Structure formats: C-alpha cells, structure tokens
C-alpha cells in the first residue's frame, strides 16, 4: 500500500474537510491533494532521483511527502538546525536529490551542486504544474530519515510505503475522529513523529494545526484558539507547558489527549502534569525511527490506574511505555540470545510489518526471523507492560555489575533538590567504570552531593550509588530531548 492511497481515501471520504492550518494558511483535503498532484509534476519535471527538504515544516511536510510519493520518489526531511557542512554531508548521500528549502536556509544549501528550489516557488509552481500521479511499488522506499547520530555517523533509515501504511492502518481507524477534532503538531519535520503525525491524522480525519517552532505560550494559545483536542510533545516541551500553566493558569477545555514521547520523561513531571490537568488523557508513546514511529503506548486509562494504585507493580507502570500496539511482537533477549522471562532485563527485539530495520549503505539488520534489535534495554512486567531503561551502549559496567543509568536517574530525579539528571559511566582503573551523576539543581536550591548519594543508597544497592555527583546549569540534549551522554562523558574526562 502506498502512502498516497491514505490521502486518496481521505479525499474520497470528505474532500471539503479542513486538513491543515499553518501560519494562517488553511487547506482542505481536496486542496492538499490537488497541490500534491501538481508538486509531483514539479518533481517529475526536475528529473531528480529523490527529494529532500531543509526547513521548519508545517504544511510543507505533508505536501512534500505526498508530492514525492506521487512522483514515485523517496523523500528526506533534513534537520534544519545542522550546519552547512553537516547538511552537505547528508545531502551527498542522497540519490540526485531535488532540495526544497525554506528561504532562511538558502545559504546553507547553495553551492552544493544539486538541484534546489525554495519552498514558496515550489508551492507556486505546484499550483499550475501538469499533475502527475504514479503509483509506486509498496516495497519502494517512501521516506529516508537520518538518525540523530548522538554516538556515531548518522544512519539513513529507509521506510517503505508498506512500513508506514502498516503502522497507520494497524493503529488508526479510518475517519475515526469526531467532527471538529484537531491535533496540534509541534514535533520537527525531520523526526519520525513528524512524518507519522501527517499520515495518521489525515487518515483519522483530524484537522492538523502546525506550530513550526515550539513556544509554550504559543502552544497554549493555539490549543485554545483552534479548539485543539489532541497533541504530541517531547519531554522538554511538556516541562515548559506545565511551567507556563503553573505560572499563568488557563483552562484547556477542548484538550482530550496529550501524548508524550521521543525520550524518557521523569516521573515527577508526569505526576505534576496528571495533577494539573486532571481532565486530559495522557499517552506515553514509545517508538523508534526504524519502527515507523509508535510500537507501544501507555494509555490514559493506564495512567489513571497507575497514578492511584497501591499495588507496587501497577503503581510502577506510570514509568512504563505501556503495551505493544496491534501488529507488533516483542521479545526481551539476554546476551546469549535466549528469550528472557518476566521482569528480567535484556535487549528489546521487535517484529511487525511497520518495522523497517533497513538502512541505506548498510542494508537490513533484521535477523532471519524478521526480528529487529532495538539496542534498548528493556523488561516486561507480569501483564506485558514494557519498561525501557535506556540504550544498551549507555549501560555502565562497574566492578563487573551492569547498571542501567535510568535506574539511578529515576531515584535521583525524585529528590526535591534535583530538577534534571543524567547518569554516565566514566573510565576508572579500579572499577572499570565509575558512576557519575550530572545534576541540574532545582531553582534556588543548594544541592549537597553527599545528601544525594545517601538518597540513592537508601533505595538501591550500594554499588549503584554514584561515585561522584557534579552540577551543571543544564544538560546537553538533541532538539527532541535526548540527552547527549557522549558530550557529558567527553567533558567530564577533560576535567579529570
């Protein structure tokens, strides 16, 4: 199934429905579809072998996704925050791309020796171009996304039409949105969540309201002005929205669900959010680029039950990513490859039609039975709730004992003096690695390293107590909130 077919289905259901709102531009499903046909014509006429985009997204994202699909070419939204050099390195890896860019990134894409066109000119040409509507093979690559490359060279993940449409048709009921439903999209266009948002909301029949550059005040204003009923945010955005609502309380009467994901959310923040917005259903969504977005969800009901539970196993689920979505199988495997039982931590493997596991220049990393190694350390509880404790690369081995940083972080972040924390392993002659906690203190609080160490010792074994506690004003993160642990380790090494 091609992603274009999702748009065709939306078109035949209700062409006059408002599909998206972005900076004052409003497009119906019919207008988006006509523009995508014209856009496909522009792309086909350019003779390019693929399409890339450097810009902040909004309406351009669905337009270029569907234009590229109808032209039968793959599409790559690139990280507009990268330097000109960083962008060049990625663009050189794409097949004869036509690079569409927002005006403010003109300099970053000039002189690359590839075809370029600015977004406004592209849209204007699309309005009058001879329409093209190819039907690509379902196994062709629809979207190529570069991983953030926090530890190594960015990898080019290839998602086929089938991967993406399997995710959408498997998790979203067609036209299931209520009339008037609207989603606020503020995730960046080069992130898998940006891609999946454009597809699944169109399919559900939900109006897409775009906020291209996140700002908490503007987010709250849009929720109120556009009658937003659902939204997805990354943890740093959630923290800013909550802070803003605490300082300037306003009701958000239309908001029914608020999903968060992209990286781990500290439990105190989840609890604060639940208490501050009791009428909002919170959703924790877990997924990877390689799995075409979400593979597990913790539902609003799960949140409510866990938040008020007395049973320790159920209470803990507030920190889980919930249960796998339909069509996804999960396994936890030990170092020897054996499948592990309940509550035993190991590497998470997943399988399903939405799982790509394929990279340009590398090929497929699926095993012979189709399982994808996520490189995330995870465990399942007795009812199949999935807990993620970080990347296997980040596991600290101290004196032969494996320690997931998340385990220590989860304890530290509950201390009132701690606003944020990252725990990393630093090379050490005696222990192999030692545990270092990098703490961002709560506002106006003088945190005491010894007190924080004692706090951890109370909850965890002594060998899990940080050997050192250091303080910083903030943690280095990617735009979607992933902590750049490698940067912290390099910095700590330099200091010692």
């Amino acid at each position: 199934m091609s992603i274009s077919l999702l748009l065709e289905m939306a078109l035949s259901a209700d062409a006059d429905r408002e599909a998206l709102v972005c900076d004052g531009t409003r497009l119906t499903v019919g207008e988006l579809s006509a523009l995508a046909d014209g856009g496909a014509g522009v792309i086909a006429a350019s003779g390019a072998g693929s399409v890339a985009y450097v810009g902040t997204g909004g309406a351009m994202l669905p337009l270029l996704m569907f234009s590229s699909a109808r032209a039968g070419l793959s599409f790559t939204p690139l990280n507009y925050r990268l330097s000109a050099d960083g962008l060049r390195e990625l663009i050189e890896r794409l097949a004869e791309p036509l690079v569409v860019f927002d005006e403010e990134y003109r300099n970053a894409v000039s002189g690359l020796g590839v075809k370029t066109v600015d977004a406004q000119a592209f849209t204007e040409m699309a309005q009058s171009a001879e329409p093209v509507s190819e039907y690509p093979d379902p196994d062709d690559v629809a979207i190529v996304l570069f991983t953030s490359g926090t530890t190594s060279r960015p990898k080019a993940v290839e998602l086929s039409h089938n991967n993406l449409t399997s995710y959408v048709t498997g998790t979203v009921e067609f036209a299931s949105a209520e009339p008037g439903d609207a989603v606020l999209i503020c995730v960046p266009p080069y992130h898998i969540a940006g891609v999946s948002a454009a597809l699944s909301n169109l399919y559900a029949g939900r109006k897409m309201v775009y906020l291209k550059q996140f700002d908490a005040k503007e987010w709250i204003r849009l929720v109120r002005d556009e009658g937003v009923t659902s939204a997805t945010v990354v943890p740093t955005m959630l923290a800013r929205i909550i802070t803003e609502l605490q300082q300037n309380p306003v009701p958000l009467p239309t908001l029914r669900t608020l999903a968060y994901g992209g990286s781990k959310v500290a439990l105190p923040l989840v609890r604060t959010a639940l208490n501050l917005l009791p009428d909002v259903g919170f959703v924790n969504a877990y997924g990877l680029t390689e799995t075409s977005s979400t593979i597990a969800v913790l539902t609003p009901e799960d949140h409510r039950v866990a938040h008020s539970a007395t049973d320790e196993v159920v209470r803990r689920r507030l920190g889980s990513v919930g249960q796998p979505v339909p069509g996804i199988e999960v396994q936890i495997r030990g170092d020897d490859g054996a499948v592990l039982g309940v509550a035993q931590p190991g590497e998470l493997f997943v399988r399903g039609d939405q799982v790509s596991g394929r990279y340009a220049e590398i090929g497929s990393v699926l095993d012979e039975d189709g399982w994808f190694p996520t490189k995330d350390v995870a465990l399942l509880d007795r009812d199949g709730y999935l807990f993620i404790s970080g990347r296997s690369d980040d596991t600290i081995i101290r004196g032969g004992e494996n320690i997931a940083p998340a385990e220590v972080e989860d304890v530290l972040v509950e201390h009132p003096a701690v606003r944020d924390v990252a725990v990393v392993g630093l090379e050490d002659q005696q222990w192999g690695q030692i545990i270092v906690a990098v703490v961002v203190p709560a506002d106006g609080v003088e945190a005491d390293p010894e007190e924080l160490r004692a706090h951890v010792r109370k909850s965890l074994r002594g060998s899990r107590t940080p050997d050192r506690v250091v303080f910083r004003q903030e943690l280095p993160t990617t735009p979607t909130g992933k902590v750049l642990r490698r940067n912290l380790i390099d910095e700590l090494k330099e200091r010692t």
Partner: protein
Amino acid sequence: MIKTGTRLKSQVCDTEVIVIKPGDGLDDLRAGGAPMHEIGSDAGGDATLDPKFADGNVMGKRYVDDTGAEVLVTKAGAGTLSIGDVPMSLKEAKPLPASD
C-alpha cells in the same frame, strides 16, 4: 496467491480494496457475488450485483476470512465482500488513543 498491496475492484459496484494480509481464500474474493479483479486489468464478463450479496461494505474498514486473509476497503460499494459464498467479517479493532 494474491500478494500484499494488491488493489482489487468490483465488477458490479464501486467497491475497491487493498490486500493487507494474503491468504489462499483471496483467490476467490468476490464483491456483490462477482469475482473482484486487479485494478487496471480487464474485468471481462457482464456480471450484475447479486441481491443475496448486497449488504454493502464500509469505507476504511478491514475485512477478514477465517484463514487470516485481510483486505482494507479503500472505496465503499453496495456489494458484500465474500470468499466464494462465505461473507467476510468486519475486523473489530480495539481503539487506541491518539498518539501522533
């Protein structure tokens, strides 16, 4: 066997489907009592809608047979989807909260 992603249309009504999960039964997939054919291919014949198979189908819904074959309705029509004479059943999905 008809493979995943194949698009089929009805000879006797507006119905169009796409194959989500293949299965042997799909070789005898019918809409409105008449065999469905691949979009783009010639239907041949001059079949008409069989009143016994005129309960229609629902846009965007998935239909399954008892062997696990699954199709998605991409265009609704007046005919009943069936494998031979056995109507396919509507696949009930547990609704998930919006997460995108």
